[in-house]
């Protein structure tokens, strides 16, 4: 079976959630199907400017076809358009203008899908909100499977997405909450869709002591992994954490791994380490008292799954329905909706080794039941099997 994974960016250096999700899924499903990746030459998700050479290359055994983005995004114009369509009365034409600016606008990619559609049995599109998914699904609706990677942000309510969500043959959702949200927005209950998510690979020998030695961290710490920006729940987490220190006199530190686009408070208990290699990341995770996920919007938090895979508890922002839902279903994490709840939950986690262990074990069990790669691969195969059996 020939299957094309269509995604906005692709590469070993690209660590964005949906892109990494796509790469891992493509690499694992290549054990079952002839997999190709159709993507753009972009590396930068702000402008989509061409970066990689045009044409074909092979990445981890997968053939990748790259197409040019002739008109990069103008962030200023995009911001204006987005404000307009989110705040003002507008027409569907305005929404299409927004989509053109959202990009990555690659007519060659679309042309390839139209011309060579017959060569593939299925196209699996990643991320509903981008140009390639919108026009790609419209070009080959009978072969399209959508992995929406949808978060609870405002653009999902745009009118033209309602029609889009009814077009594909099937959906591969990341979570129950994502499925409920998309079905509520579009009423696409008749389109089949499994909750699949993504697996993760955890190195066998995580060494927390090595991490502590390398970075001279000599106290219990909470860990945040990922980009440090406003959508991810900053600077609220800084405020909460510093107030927590003042209120309780706790000696816990906050370790941040990931690039920041916000100023980080200069405080002896906050350790901004920037981008770190995978091994260091898992070493840090294995030694953390808990992983903190302050993000407001997630369709599936891969670092949460990684924390659970390592048996570590999670403290999540309850405003993110997906994270709260996962904590409730797994019994693997606590969550907070405001500062007093943050304080009480964190106090509890730091005070009780038994609670940390139980949350972590529950998380690990949840991960092993739903998110190992064998299970994820089987769900992808099941999705396609069901489509093949349709009359």
């Amino acid at each position, binding site marked *: 079976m020939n299957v094309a994974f269509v995604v906005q960016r692709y590469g070993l250096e690209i660590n964005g959630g949906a892109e990494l999700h796509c790469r891992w899924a493509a690499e694992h499903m290549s054990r079952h199907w002839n997999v190709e990746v159709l993507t753009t030459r972009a590396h930068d998700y702000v402008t989509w400017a061409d970066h990689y050479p045009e044409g074909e290359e092979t990445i981890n055994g997968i053939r990748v076809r790259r197409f040019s983005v002739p008109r990069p995004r103008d962030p200023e114009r995009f911001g204006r358009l987005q404000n307009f369509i989110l705040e003002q009365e507008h027409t569907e034409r305005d929404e299409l203008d927004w989509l053109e600016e959202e990009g990555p606008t690659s007519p060659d990619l679309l042309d390839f899908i139209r011309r060579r559609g017959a060569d593939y049995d299925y196209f699996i599109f990643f991320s509903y909100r981008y140009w390639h998914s919108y026009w790609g699904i419209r070009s080959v609706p009978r072969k399209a499977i959508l992995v929406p990677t949808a978060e609870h942000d405002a653009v999902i309510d745009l009118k033209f997405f309602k029609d889009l969500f009814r077009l594909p043959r099937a959906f591969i959702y990341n979570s129950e909450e994502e499925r409920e949200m998309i079905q509520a927005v579009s009423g696409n209950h008749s389109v089949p869709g499994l909750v699949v998510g993504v697996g993760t690979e955890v190195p066998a020998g995580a060494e927390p002591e090595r991490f502590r030695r390398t970075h001279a961290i000599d106290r219990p710490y909470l860990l945040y992994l990922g980009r440090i920006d406003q959508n991810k729940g900053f600077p609220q987490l800084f405020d909460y954490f510093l107030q927590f220190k*003042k209120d309780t006199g706790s000696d816990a530190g906050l370790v941040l791994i990931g690039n920041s686009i916000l100023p980080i408070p200069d405080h002896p208990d906050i350790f901004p380490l920037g981008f770190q290699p995978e091994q260091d990341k898992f070493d840090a995770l294995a030694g953390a008292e808990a992983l903190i996920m302050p993000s407001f919007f997630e369709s599936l938090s891969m670092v949460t799954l990684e924390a659970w895979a390592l048996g570590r508890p999670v403290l999540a922002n309850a405003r993110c329905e997906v994270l709260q839902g996962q904590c409730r279903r797994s019994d693997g994490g*606590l969550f907070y909706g405001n500062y*007093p709840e943050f304080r*009480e939950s964190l106090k*509890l986690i730091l005070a009780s080794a038994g*609670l940390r*262990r139980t949350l972590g074990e529950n998380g690990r069990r949840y991960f092993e039941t739903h998110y190992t790669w064998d299970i994820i691969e089987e769900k992808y195969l099941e999705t396609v099997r069901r489509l093949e059996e349709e009359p």
Partner: protein
Amino acid sequence: MDDVKPAGKETIEGIEIDYDHFDVASIMTQVKRAAARRPVEPLEAKPEPPAAPPAAPEPPAPAPSIPPPSKPGLKEIVKLKLSRAIRPFAPVIRFLGLPLHEEILASWAEIGRISRRQDELSDRLDRALEKIDRRFSDSAAELDRLRDWLDVRLVDLDRSMEYVKLLHNLDHNLVVELTKLRIEFETLKSRARILEKDLEAQTRRERVLEKRLGS
């Protein structure tokens, strides 16, 4: 790290964790209650020290064999009067020390949050209603404009209908006149044919008469 395998129940700052029936939802309910009980303190404020334990009763002083009658001082009199004054409220005051008070505080905080949320929603509703009202006014003005335009068009239409009626009558009359003319034409044609035949007969008679006169 965290090597202890927990079992049974553990209570931390009033939050009970039942490891045999572990449930995050139940822990979160207790966390929310605890959060409501302990409101946010300003950064500078120090946490209040826990209430002092009741002082241990002093050992009774050796009673004198004959207690000397003592006159109560002003302080004792005020204390006595105060204690009499607050006696009716004593059960309520006792409640303050019971968990019920914490429950009430938690509920109170919850009601406060809900009220704030309600106020916010109410504000949003007001704003939305204002917006709808503005839209409605705009639409009403637009409707009036359309109605005026329609009135003018209706007058034009009435006039046009009158013209059409007149034209229709004219057509009808023309058809009648044309029909009459046609009939008259046919009559005249018949009369012309008769006259023609009469003329032919007269011509033949003339020729016969001329022959007879010539012979």
